[in-house]
């Protein structure tokens, strides 16, 4: 029993980071599943993070903090959607990357909200039960969405936008909803990240986290909502696993591992299509 509790103490923070990264990955996934590669979750996270941090500093209750952060993320996502959805998907990736770069500059200069170059210290640690509850709620929502008209419409949209349009799917509506969900989940994730790190600065929501969330999403599989969750867990745990290799080569080991997974499983760890094919192959042979 002692060993178990020691194990938990050792890896508790890794589990917490994996859960927050899962939120970000899910936020990226929902937009990706509607056909767009977008790094804009970073921006939603930044908004949720700084707004959430300010609220915690001013002593507001946690439930309010998370709800308002989610709404802040939603606000930004609606603006981003309105402006960016006119672009085609190639541009969306570049535009969202540009947006991430601009976000850092905005954070640096909006000193009243973000503390500017000094960043913000958050006086409260993130209670793990809250984080678990939020993640479970989000996952349940995604499960419901997968089987809803939105889930089906977005899958069709991703496969082939023109065909989807011909079949009467309202592209704009699906895309806006996707961005909205992304905004809420990203905003809440940002607030959670702020409380986990207990200090956020212009560099917190920048390229590092952008690459983390996209890698987690694609690694886990961007064709099913469970993929990003698993991908975030694997990606977050990777450095801890690589500890047992020479410290200076840890990053290289990380990269090699990621490379191997992508080369052998380009559609990610969780791939519904591969599963269906395997199942039907088994069915045929029996």
């Amino acid at each position, binding site marked *: 029993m002692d060993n178990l509790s020691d194990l938990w103490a050792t890896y508790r923070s890794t589990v917490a980071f994996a859960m927050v990264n899962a939120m970000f990955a899910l936020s990226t996934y929902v937009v*990706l599943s509607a056909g767009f*590669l977008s790094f804009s979750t970073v921006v939603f996270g930044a908004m949720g993070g700084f707004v959430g941090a300010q609220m915690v500093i001013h002593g507001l209750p946690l439930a309010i903090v998370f709800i308002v952060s989610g709404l802040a993320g939603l606000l930004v996502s609606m603006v981003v959607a309105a*402006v*960016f959805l*006119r*672009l*085609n998907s*190639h*541009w969306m*990736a*570049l*535009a969202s*990357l*540009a*947006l991430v*770069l*601009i976000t*850092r*500059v*905005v954070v*640096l*200069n909006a000193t009243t909200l973000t503390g500017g170059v000094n960043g913000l210290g958050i006086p409260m640690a993130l209670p793990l039960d809250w984080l678990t509850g939020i993640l479970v709620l989000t996952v349940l929502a995604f499960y419901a969405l997968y089987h809803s008209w939105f889930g089906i419409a977005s899958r069709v949209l991703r496969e*082939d*936008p*023109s065909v989807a349009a011909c079949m009467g799917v309202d592209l704009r509506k699906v895309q806006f909803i996707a961005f909205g969900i992304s905004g809420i989940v990203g905003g809440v994730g940002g607030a959670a990240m702020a409380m986990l790190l207990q200090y956020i600065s212009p560099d917190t929501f920048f390229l590092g986290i952008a*690459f983390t969330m*996209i*890698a987690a999403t*694609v*690694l886990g599989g*961007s064709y099913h909502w469970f993929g990003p969750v698993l991908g975030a867990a694997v990606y977050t745990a990777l450095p801890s696993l690589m500890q047992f290799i020479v410290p*200076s*080569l840890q*990053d*290289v080991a*990380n*990269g*090699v591992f*990621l*490379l191997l997974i*992508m*080369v052998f499983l*380009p*559609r990610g760890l969780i791939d519904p299509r591969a599963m269906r094919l395997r199942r039907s192959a088994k069915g045929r042979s029996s």
Partner: protein
Amino acid sequence: MELFASQLLNGLSLGSLYGLFGIGFGLVFATLGILNAAQGCYASWAAIAALVVAERAGLPFPLIMFAGMGAAAVVAVIVDQMGFQPLRARGADMLGALITSIAFWMILDSLAGFATGQQSLSFPPQSYPGQMLLTQPVPLPAMQLIAILALVVVAIGTHLLMTRSAIGSAIRAVGWNPVSAALSGVNSRYVIMLTAALSGAISGLAGTLGGVLTSNVSFTLGQGLMLKGFAAVVVGGYSDVRGTAIAGVVLGILEVFVGQYFSASYRDAFTYSLLLVFLLVKPQGLFGKGSFVRA
């Protein structure tokens, strides 16, 4: 007045590096459809290789530059064949390529840190032309002139290659659709490797020159070039090399003047806002021709 002219020159030289890097980056993005996160590493490694050659072999500067470009080309081909080709072979979409490029970015940057002993190194003073060509009316270091000339030569050369030569057509055909290009008798695999090598060499040239100009050979060199080169590609229009070159120069000049008359924190705001405006208003960039939708 002298300050203005000096800064203009600084901006031109800096912008030439951005433009050069952008040409390499845009080549891969436009023709192979890959957002290559590891492109910056090509530049860093080019500088490291060039430094090793400069320190050990004492060759003249043009050969040092070629050594850097060659090394970067080799790295680019390795990354393409190990990271992107397996995905192409399975017909997987290029989203996975972004992730493998991130993996390579981790690996290459970490190895680059190793290679420089975690320090920032500089070229031995005798290995490059470090003299001032002019001091009146404006100080003109020889290296800045070399950077500007390099951009002009590479931009014109690449443009001619892409638009007037058979290889250029082959590259563009493979970028559009490798299967139909193969049907037309193009060896797709070979052309892709060539494109990767070319893109690596050009970004590598930017890295080598950057390493000399900024006295900073380390993995941070590539990261800096990456962000600005990417902006140059977007503003200039990634389907046209001339646009990237001009956009890079404009960005360099803007950066210098905004940094001087305002402050460094607004500098990036300017650059990236410009980027965003272009993306929204004129996504094909200054010179790009129409946006194609891959249905």
